[in-house]
């Protein structure tokens, strides 16, 4: 039974100093988040207010959803560069369905209810994920290359569908029965944006999948040592396909939430978001080699990156500094990752 989070090693239990260091290293994403909140609350009175916290958390929702899917893929030892483009494609597809699909052969315009649009968009995301999965698992294309190709194809498909413009009439019409798109992310329940609820639900579902379901164990073992896993009877190739499908579905959810939040679906949405998703996974402590990482860490990573970026905007620092800081955080996180996971002997 593999335990994904490194436990304190037996040798260090005698010396308190090493335990503290280990504790800090373990919870680095959490401490980083606390530090960021403390620093920015000091620099600006506007930062630590309820409304700002809700606003920033709803920004986290988009990257968090992408990062959850990305974590699943990275745990399997792969990478998924196409999530940003899948986000745009699914958002645009949903927008296209909301405008009404014209079936010229039957002479009708089809207006689907919002739940059907959601199902179709998720299916589109799953389809892109399946393409990635088959390329990586069965055709043995390196994950980087396969998902890079899908990135371009999905982006191109989204641009072709819209001709570079955006779909804006997403509210629907009561007489056609397709209202309610705003419930995907625009509205608030008890003052909390719905996107946060969707993020929480997806995170809990993914956490249960990883810790309670056999699939989770298969995933960790595939990422840890694919050959050993295969010999032990784990259906490695099916797992690989399924993680990309799940990543595609997460990207589709993110695309729907984003289109709902902005009340418009554009083909250029999500450009370079895959890099932020990877950053969130890395900052959260996952290993890019696969086999190590938790949902909790990934969510903390997403919070760290977004809260840092939002804080810089609020105190009025140039957006160019944001890019520098985000990069510095990632480099620091990777260094700490290698301190935790690398070195002589493997800490299990």
């Amino acid at each position, binding site marked *: 039974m593999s335990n994904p989070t490194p436990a304190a090693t037996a040798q260090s239990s005698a010396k308190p100093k090493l335990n503290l260091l280990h504790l800090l290293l373990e919870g680095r994403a959490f401490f980083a988040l606390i530090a960021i909140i403390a620093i920015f609350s000091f620099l*600006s*009175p*506007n*930062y630590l*207010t309820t*409304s*700002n916290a809700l*606003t920033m958390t709803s*920004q986290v929702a*988009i990257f968090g959803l992408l990062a959850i899917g990305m974590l699943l893929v990275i745990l399997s030892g792969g990478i998924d560069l196409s999530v940003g483009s899948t986000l745009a494609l699914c958002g645009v597809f949903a927008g296209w369905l909301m405008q009404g699909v014209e079936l010229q052969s039957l002479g009708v315009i089809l207006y689907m209810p919002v739940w059907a649009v959601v199902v179709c968009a998720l299916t589109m995301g799953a389809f892109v994920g399946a393409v990635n999965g088959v390329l990586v698992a069965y055709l043995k294309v390196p994950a980087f290359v396969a998902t890079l190709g899908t990135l371009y194809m999905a982006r191109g498909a989204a641009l072709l569908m819209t*001709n*570079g*413009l*955006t779909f*804006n009439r997403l509210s629907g019409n009561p007489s056609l029965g397709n209202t309610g798109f705003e419930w995907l992310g625009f509205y608030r329940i008890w003052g909390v944006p719905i996107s946060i609820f969707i993020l929480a639900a997806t995170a809990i579902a993914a956490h249960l999948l990883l810790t309670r379901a056999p699939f989770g164990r298969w995933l960790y073992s595939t990422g840890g040592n694919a050959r050993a896993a295969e010999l032990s009877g784990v259906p490695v190739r099916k797992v690989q396909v399924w993680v990309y499908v799940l990543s595609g579905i997460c990207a589709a959810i993110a695309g729907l939430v*984003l289109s709902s*939040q*902005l*009340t*418009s679906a*554009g083909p*250029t*949405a999500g*450009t370079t978001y895959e890099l932020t998703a990877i950053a969130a996974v890395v900052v959260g402590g996952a290993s890019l080699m696969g086999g190590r990482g938790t949902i909790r860490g990934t969510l903390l990573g997403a919070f760290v990156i977004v809260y840092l970026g*939002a804080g810089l*905007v*609020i*105190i*009025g*620092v140039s*957006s160019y500094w944001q890019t520098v800081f985000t990069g510095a955080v990632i480099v620091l996180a990777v260094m700490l990752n290698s301190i935790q996971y690398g070195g002589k002997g493997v800490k299990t």
Partner: protein
Amino acid sequence: MIKITKRALLAAAVSMPLMAGSAFAEGLISIIVNDPANPYWFTEGEVARATAEELGYTANVSAHRGDTNVESNLVDAAITNGAKAIILDPANADGSVGVVRRATDAGIPVFLVNAEINEAGIAIAQLVSNNAQGAALGAVTWQSIVGDEAKYVEFFGNPSDNNAATRSNGYNTVLSQYPGLEKVAEEVANWDRTQGYNRMQSIMQANPQIDAVISGNDEMALGAIAALKEAGRLEGTVIGGFDGSPDAVDAIRAGEMAYTVLQPVAVFSREAVIQADYYIKNGTPMVAEEKQLFDCLLITPDNVDQYTAPFTLSN
């Protein structure tokens, strides 16, 4: 005509770090532009910032680079910071409507500059260049230089910016009256110099003879010039831009570009902040009409010496 001298811009830029503290004078004005890497949007932001500070406000300039999600986040930050007004160059004529409405609902007046949104009654004012007039001015000048017969290329801006279509329609209205003018290619280059360069290279491969280029903005035209220069086909090709950026004016001085149409961005950027200040102090709009058009001017080799500051022609 207001002259914003380089010194004022430099002084404003230097004094900016001093304003970064939490002591707001009259309040904060948030200025959100597209991409300061383009001198047009850079001037838009800097002139607005300088005017805001001149009137006693703190100002910060941020960039959304055409991404409606980033625009949404920046407007959220402005609302969080309790900005007194937002000066915004919208990313998308349809897609930015929601974000403008959100700011207005939060009690912050929004003044749009350079590009419009496709809904009236939300923003307090929309200050744009008279793109139709500018496009007609540019096209007429272009045709008078090119003549009655030519093979030409058109560069189209970002399709989600209404200005792209307005300028293209303006050009076509004039140029379609001359049957001898043949458009061999029309490419979307998204206001970007590198994209203009790459597209021009491909177009040159497909078309051995190109007599002229007409572009939706200066950056794309400068990209086309670079591509033509590299291929050795610049000599004798007439290129027309739109914006009046300093790089384009240098190209006109060097004889590489034939003309450009100056957008009075320094004028309406300043005007937007002045109107914002009036609204903050009086609660009513300074100008009754929401959509305000500012006429464009022509910059040719003849009057290029009057270009004293970025986007400013002194008389």
